[in-house]
C-alpha cells in the first residue's frame, strides 16, 4: 500500500508536465486532463484512507522510501514519504477540495484563452502541496513549501498583462521568501543540533537538545509559518494575492496553501512542546493576526479582499490553537479542515457572483442578488452561517473548541487569549454579515449605473475594460454550482461529523498527542458567550448595512476605517521603509561600485598612464638616440660586472 503514496503526487505532476509542455495542441482538452488527474489523486487518497482505517490507531503510519536525494557525508536527505493521520487529513482536503475547484474552473475560466496553462499551474500546485504534507524530512518539505510558493506566484500573476497582478505575484513570492529563509535556518539549526532533519530522529532526540537551540528552531519555523500563512508581520501579501483568478483564491489562498503554516507548527509539535517560550510567541502571533485580519475584513469593499481578511483572521485562530500545545493541535487541524470547506465555498460563491456581474468585485455595486443567483445565494449563505459559528454548523464546533482551549491555557494568558478569540468571533459575525447583506440583500445598486468608477482600493475595477453596460446577473453553469453545493454540504455537516464521538480527536491523537485542558469556565458558559457575541456582531452589521441603504461610493469613514482599508498602514510602512529604502540603497551602491571600487582601479590605471606619458618623451624616434641608450646600457652592464668582480 505504501507504493501508492508516490502516485498521489505523480498524478498531478504528470498533469502539470503534460499541460505545460504539450502546447496549443492540448488547448481543447487540457482542462479535462487536469481535472481528471486531480480526481485520480483524490481516488488514490480515498483508497489509502480506507487502508489506514483498516489498521489500528498506532499503526497508521506508512513510509515510502523512493531514493537518496542529497548524500554528502553526514548530510543525508532522502526522498521519503510519510503518510500518517495528519498528512492523510491534509491529502484528503487538498485532493478533495482541489478536484472540486478544478471542476469549478472548467466553467469559470471558459472564456480565457490560456485555460490549459491555468490547469497546468493548478496541477503543479496540487503536486507541490501534496509533497509538502507527505515529506518525511524538512528538506523535502522545503521543496514542497517553495513549490506551492511558485504555483501561487504563477497563479496570482496569471493575468500577467495587468501590472497589478504581476506586482502582487512578485510581492507574494518575496514575502514568502522571507519566511522560507526562516525554514532554511531552522533546517540548518536542526542539522547542527541533531545531525539530521528527518522527522523521526529529530522528534526522538528533542530531549537531548538544549533549550536555547530548540527555541531558536521553533521561532524560525514560526517565521516560515508566518510567511506562508500570512500571519503578522508577514501578512501583507495575502490581500494583494486576490488579483489571481477566484478559484485560485479559493484553493490556494483560503483552503490549502495558506494553512501550510499551521501544518508546519502541528507537525513540529514535538519541538514546540519542548520550547514553551516559542509557543507563547506562536499564540501571540495568532491572536494579533486574528484581530488584524478581522479588522481589515470589516473595512474592505472588495468582496475578495474582505474574504482574504477573514482568511487571515481564521488562520490566526488556527495558529493560536497550535501555539497552545497538545491542548490545541487537534482543534487547530479540525478548524483548518472545516475552514477549508466553508471558506473555499465562500470564495467560489464570490467567484460565481463576479462571473455573473462582469467581473465586478466592489460590493457597493452589488445588492439584491439573491433573486438572480439562488444556488449561489444558498451555498454562500450556508458557508456564511458556518463561518460565524451558527450552532450546529461546522464552524460552531471547531471554533468553540479553540475558544475553550484558549481559556484552558490557564492563568492571565488564558484569559487574554480567550477574550481575544471571543472578540474575534463577534467581529467575524460582523464582517461576514456585512458581506452577505451588501451582496445579496438590499437595493440593486448595479442597475442604472452611469459610469464605471474606481473601487476604493485605488485599483481600476476590472469592470472598466469588461463592459460599461449594465450587468445582467445570472446563475453560473453546472460545473461551477456543483462544487459549491458539495462544499456547502461540507460546511454544514463536517463539524458535527468530526465531533461525533470525538472521532476526529481519536483519529489525530496518535500523531499530534492530545491533552484535555481544564477551562476556568464551563463549556456552556463559553458556548453561550460565543453565541451572544455572534448575535451582537450580526446585529451591529444589520443595523449598519441592512436597515439603511448602502452608499454606492464609500464614505470617507473614521480614521480607523481608513487605516483598515489600507491594511492598517502596514503596506505604507513596507513601502516607505523597505521599498524606498531598498531603492536608495541599491542606487547608492551602484554609484559606489562605479566610482569607488572601479575608481580605485581606474585611478591606478590613470596614474600608470600619466607616468608612461612622461616616459614617452624619451622615445623621440631618432635611431641614433636609441643607439646611445643602448650603448649607455651596455656600458653600465660592463661597469657593473667589473665592479662586482672587483668586490
Amino acid at each position, binding site marked *: 500500500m505504501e507504493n501508492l503514496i508516490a502516485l498521489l503526487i505523480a498524478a498531478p505532476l504528470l498533469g502539470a508536465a503534460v499541460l505545460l509542455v504539450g502546447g496549443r495542441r492540448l488547448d481543447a482538452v487540457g482542462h479535462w486532463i487536469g481535472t481528471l488527474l486531480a480526481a485520480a489523486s483524490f481516488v488514490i487518497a480515498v483508497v489509502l484512507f480506507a487502508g489506514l482505517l483498516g489498521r489500528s490507531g498506532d499503526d497508521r503510519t506508512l513510509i515510502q522510501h523512493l531514493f537518496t536525494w542529497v548524500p554528502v557525508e553526514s548530510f543525508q536527505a532522502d526522498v521519503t514519504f510519510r503518510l500518517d493521520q495528519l498528512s492523510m487529513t491534509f491529502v484528503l482536503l487538498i485532493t478533495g477540495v482541489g478536484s472540486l475547484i478544478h471542476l469549478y474552473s472548467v466553467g469559470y475560466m471558459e472564456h480565457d484563452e490560456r485555460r490549459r496553462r491555468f490547469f497546468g499551474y493548478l496541477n503543479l500546485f496540487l503536486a507541490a502541496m501534496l509533497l509538502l504534507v507527505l515529506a518525511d524530512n524538512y528538506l523535502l518539505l522545503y521543496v514542497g513549501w517553495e513549490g506551492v510558493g511558485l504555483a501561487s506566484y504563477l497563479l496570482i500573476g496569471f493575468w500577467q498583462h495587468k501590472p497589478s497582478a504581476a506586482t502582487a505575484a512578485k510581492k507574494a513570492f518575496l514575502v514568502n521568501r522571507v519566511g522560507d529563509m526562516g525554514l532554511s535556518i531552522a533546517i540548518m539549526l536542526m542539522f547542527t543540533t541533531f545531525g539530521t532533519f528527518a522527522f523521526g530522529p529529530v522528534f526522538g532526540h528533542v530531549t537531548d537538545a538544549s533549550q536555547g537551540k530548540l527555541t531558536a528552531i521553533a521561532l524560525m519555523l514560526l517565521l516560515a509559518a508566518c510567511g506562508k500563512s500570512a500571519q503578522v508581520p508577514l501578512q501583507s501579501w495575502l490581500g494583494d494575492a486576490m488579483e489571481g483568478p477566484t478559484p485560485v483564491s479559493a484553493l490556494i489562498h483560503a483552503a490549502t496553501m495558506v494553512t501550510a503554516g499551521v501544518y508546519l507548527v502541528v507537525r513540529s509539535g514535538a519541538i514546540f512542546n519542548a520550547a514553551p517560550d516559542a509557543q507563547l510567541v506562536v499564540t501571540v502571533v495568532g491572536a494579533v493576526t486574528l484581530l488584524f485580519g478581522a479588522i481589515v475584513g470589516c473595512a474592505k469593499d472588495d468582496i475578495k479582499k474582505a474574504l482574504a481578511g477573514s482568511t487571515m483572521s481564521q488562520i490566526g485562530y488556527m495558529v493560536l490553537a497550535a501555539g497552545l500545545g497538545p491542548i490545541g493541535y487537534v482543534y487547530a487541524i479540525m478548524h483548518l479542515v472545516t475552514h477549508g470547506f466553508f471558506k473555499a465555498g465562500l470564495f467560489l460563491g464570490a467567484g460565481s457572483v463576479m462571473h455573473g456581474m462582469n467581473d465586478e468585485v466592489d460590493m457597493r455595486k452589488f445588492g439584491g442578488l439573491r433573486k438572480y443567483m439562488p444556488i449561489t445565494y444558498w451555498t454562500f449563505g450556508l458557508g456564511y452561517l458556518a463561518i460565524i459559528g451558527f450552532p450546529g454548523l461546522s464552524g460552531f464546533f471547531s471554533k468553540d473548541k479553540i475558544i475553550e482551549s484558549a481559556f484552558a491555557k490557564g492563568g492571565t494568558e488564558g484569559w487574554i487569549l480567550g477574550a481575544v478569540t471571543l472578540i474575534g468571533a463577534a467581529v467575524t459575525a460582523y464582517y461576514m454579515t456585512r458581506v452577505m447583506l451588501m451582496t445579496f440583500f438590499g437595493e440593486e445598486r448595479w442597475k442604472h449605473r452611469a459610469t464605471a468608477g474606481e473601487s476604493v482600493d485605488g485599483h481600476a475595477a476590472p469592470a472598466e475594460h469588461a463592459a460599461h453596460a449594465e450587468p445582467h446577473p445570472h446563475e453560473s453553469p453546472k460545473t461551477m454550482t456543483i462544487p459549491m453545493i458539495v462544499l456547502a454540504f461540507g460546511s454544514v455537516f463536517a463539524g458535527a461529523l468530526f465531533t461525533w464521538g470525538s472521532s476526529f480527536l481519536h483519529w489525530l491523537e496518535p500523531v499530534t498527542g492530545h491533552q484535555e485542558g481544564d477551562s476556568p469556565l464551563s463549556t456552556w458558559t463559553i458556548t453561550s458567550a460565543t453565541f451572544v457575541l455572534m448575535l451582537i456582531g450580526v446585529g451591529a452589521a444589520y443595523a449598519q448595512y441592512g436597515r439603511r441603504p448602502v452608499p454606492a461610493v464609500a464614505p470617507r469613514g473614521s480614521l480607523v476605517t481608513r487605516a483598515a482599508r489600507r491594511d492598517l498602514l502596514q503596506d505604507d510602512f513596507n513601502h516607505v521603509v523597505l521599498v524606498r529604502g531598498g531603492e536608495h540603497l541599491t542606487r547608492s551602491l551602484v554609484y559606489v561600485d562605479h566610482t569607488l571600487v572601479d575608481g580605485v582601479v581606474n585611478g591606478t590605471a590613470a596614474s600608470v598612464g600619466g607616468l608612461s606619458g612622461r616616459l*614617452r618623451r624619451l*622615445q*623621440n*624616434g*631618432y*635611431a*641614433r638616440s*636609441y*643607439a*646611445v641608450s643602448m*650603448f649607455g646600457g651596455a656600458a653600465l652592464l660592463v661597469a657593473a660586472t667589473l665592479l662586482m668582480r672587483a668586490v
Partner: protein
Amino acid sequence: MNPVNYLYLAALLFTIGATGVLIRRNAIVVFMCIELMLNACNLAFVTFSRMHGNLDGQVIAFFTMVVAAAEVVVGLAIIVSLFRSRHSASVDDASLMKL
C-alpha cells in the same frame, strides 16, 4: 706578438664604429660603422680563440660573418627603399618610430 694587442685593436675599431653610428647621419655610413663594430667583435673572438686554444671563437666568427652578410642584404634593401621614397639617406629623417 702579444695577442693582447689584437684586442686593443678590436676595442679601437669598435669604438670608431660606435662613434660613427652615433654621430653620422648618412644611413650608408652608419651602416658601414655597424659593419666595423661587427668585425671588431670578430677580431676579438678570433683573438680569444687563439689565446685560449679553443675553436669556439672561430666558429662564432663564422656565424657572425654569415649573419652580417644576411643583415647587409636586408639593411641595404631598407636603405634603398627609404632613399627612393624620401630622396634622402639621412637617418634623422626617418623618425616615424615615435608615436
